[in-house]
């Protein structure tokens, strides 16, 4: 080592410290990064007991419009890619029922509707999935939905009572949406 001048050693050292290499990096790949989580949550739950239906002397007709701004929130409306809405209807009453879900825009126009015919109990739970997006109905329905209307018509009598405990009509629903974050 003593034969190597110290100045040369110092220069070699500095060169070594400052010399580094890096393989080629392609940061443009970020443009190809897709962050598209799928979120799911319940939407609407309606529970109607049979004795309420029987209180109506005619064919029981229940219709209610609910404000529902979850879908047309700016973030959801701007970034939704596709999704599925799941309906589950359970009828333990003695009446056959006609139930309709309608999606309305802010002006009250009907954007989409889904109709269900339920047999009187005992009957199986009715489940239906409706797709929205490229493989289903238009996403504009989701983007512009501001309210949901639920209408129920009693297709049976108003005196019979189901033999099942606590006879009730249950309407359950959930949404599973894929959102574009990046």
């Amino acid at each position, binding site marked *: 080592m003593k034969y190597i001048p110290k100045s040369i050693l110092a220069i070699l050292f500095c060169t070594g410290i400052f010399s580094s290499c890096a393989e080629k990096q392609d*940061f443009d790949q970020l443009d190809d990064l897709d962050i598209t989580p799928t979120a799911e949550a319940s939407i609407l739950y309606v529970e109607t007991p049979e004795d309420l239906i029987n209180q109506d002397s005619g064919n029981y007709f229940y219709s209610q419009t609910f404000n529902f701004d979850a879908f047309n929130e700016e973030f959801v409306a701007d970034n939704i890619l596709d999704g599925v809405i799941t309906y589950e209807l359970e009828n333990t009453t003695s009446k056959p029922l006609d139930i309709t879900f309608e999606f309305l825009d802010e002006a009250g126009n009907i954007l989409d509707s889904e109709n269900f015919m339920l047999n009187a109990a005992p009957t199986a739970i009715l489940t239906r999935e409706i797709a929205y997006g490229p493989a289903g109905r238009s996403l504009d329905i989701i983007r512009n939905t501001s309210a949901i209307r639920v209408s129920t018509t009693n297709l049976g009598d108003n005196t019979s009572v189901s033999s099942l405990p606590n006879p009730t009509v249950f309407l359950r629903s959930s949404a599973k949406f894929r959102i574009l974050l990046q």
Partner: protein
Amino acid sequence: MIKTLGLLSILLSGYMACYAQNKEVLYDFQEIPQAIMVNPGINTIYNWYAGIPFISGIYAKGATSGLTVNDIFAADGLDINQKVRDRALNSLSERDEVNGIFQVDILNGGFRSQKNPANFFSFGMYIEGYALNYWPKDLAVLAYEGNADRLGQRFDLNDLNASGQFINVLHFGINRQIKNNLTLGARIKLYSGILDIKSTNNSGYFETTLGENNLLRNTLVSDMRLRTSGLDALLDANDNGSSVAGLFTKRGLFGGDPGLGFDLGVTYNLNDQTVITGSLLDIGLLYHTSDVINYTLKGSASIEGVEIILPDALNDPNADVWEDLVNEIEELVPFEENNNNYVSFRPIKFYSSIRYNFGKQGEPVADCDCDYKPNSGDRSLYYLNSAGAQLYAINRPRGPQFALTAFYQRRFAKVLALKATYTVDKFTPTNVGLGMSLQAGPVNFYIMGDNLFSYGNIADSNYASFQLGLNIISWERN
């Protein structure tokens, strides 16, 4: 707010430079004056030194554990989505981290007391910034894949653990040779906080389960907070086009958040050739009082969508059930903002070492012809070689981190000293570092770097740092 959070994300997850802060090459490198900054009780071998302003100490370090830039951005033809999924989402844990630090000496100097040459005083001012972001594993999965088809899986909010800070530090230290074989040192630091961002000690979870009434139930239990100081003024300055540098200067020169800290150090010669050292750095805190904005999300809520239960719902047929639901959630888990002052503690660092000197050459290599007699204390400069081990620890939000270093130092007369280190820590088990101190007359130049094996492809490195500086050193009698 989204803009603010976006900026925060960039700040907190940026690869600014290393919070690990282990200066294993500089530690106990007696020929370099800045070594006193990592051990105020080091044996000082010069009469006085003056760092060249702004270039006496420039230090930057970056570290990542579990993932490198190359892992994601290498031009290897692989799909980046697959790489992110395989190498980040499915591989990293909440203990993996990205962090960085930089430090720049604005002023740095030291002098030996004429009245009592056993005392050596040091002083100066430096600016420091760090950013630290633990991998928010559960939140990353939630953001990347969502909660769908993950019934019963809890996404832990504690995974969010990030902090960043810019401070200016004014310091004054005293180093005193108590006995022939014992030197003690202490330093007081006055901090001036420029910017502080911190989201630590979060708790809670987000979970999706089968609903009791409806199909699904989403539950949020949250106790989260984000504390900021100086951020709002910085954003305002940026938006208004006013001088961000001016704001930094104003807050850095004691117009920001005040703080106080201490460093302690010791060097003890077990015998003529064996020396042990130790130091505790940044035992201190800052009190954040200026431009403080804190955000909290605290509470718990479980929802199953809009629920209509007849006949009760008929009592108020015009109720806005959606707004009621939103209001209920906001009431149960309020997102709030406050301006409460807060305290932040500096990350305490601990160094210790044992050094064995050998290869005696008969006279001090750095021949200090001053009133103070270095040969009455540490006699390492009489030896050509030193070898030993160092232990480093730092207090971190998820527990202390350690690094173990073996080193060898070689001196070449008065002119040149080289130090090589081998360090094992959580970032890499093969960290080889080198440091050089070059003395040309009164001018001292030093340079050091570590994890040199990674220099072949720095983008694939988990850890890299460098430090350099220029000083004027007087070895002469006062």
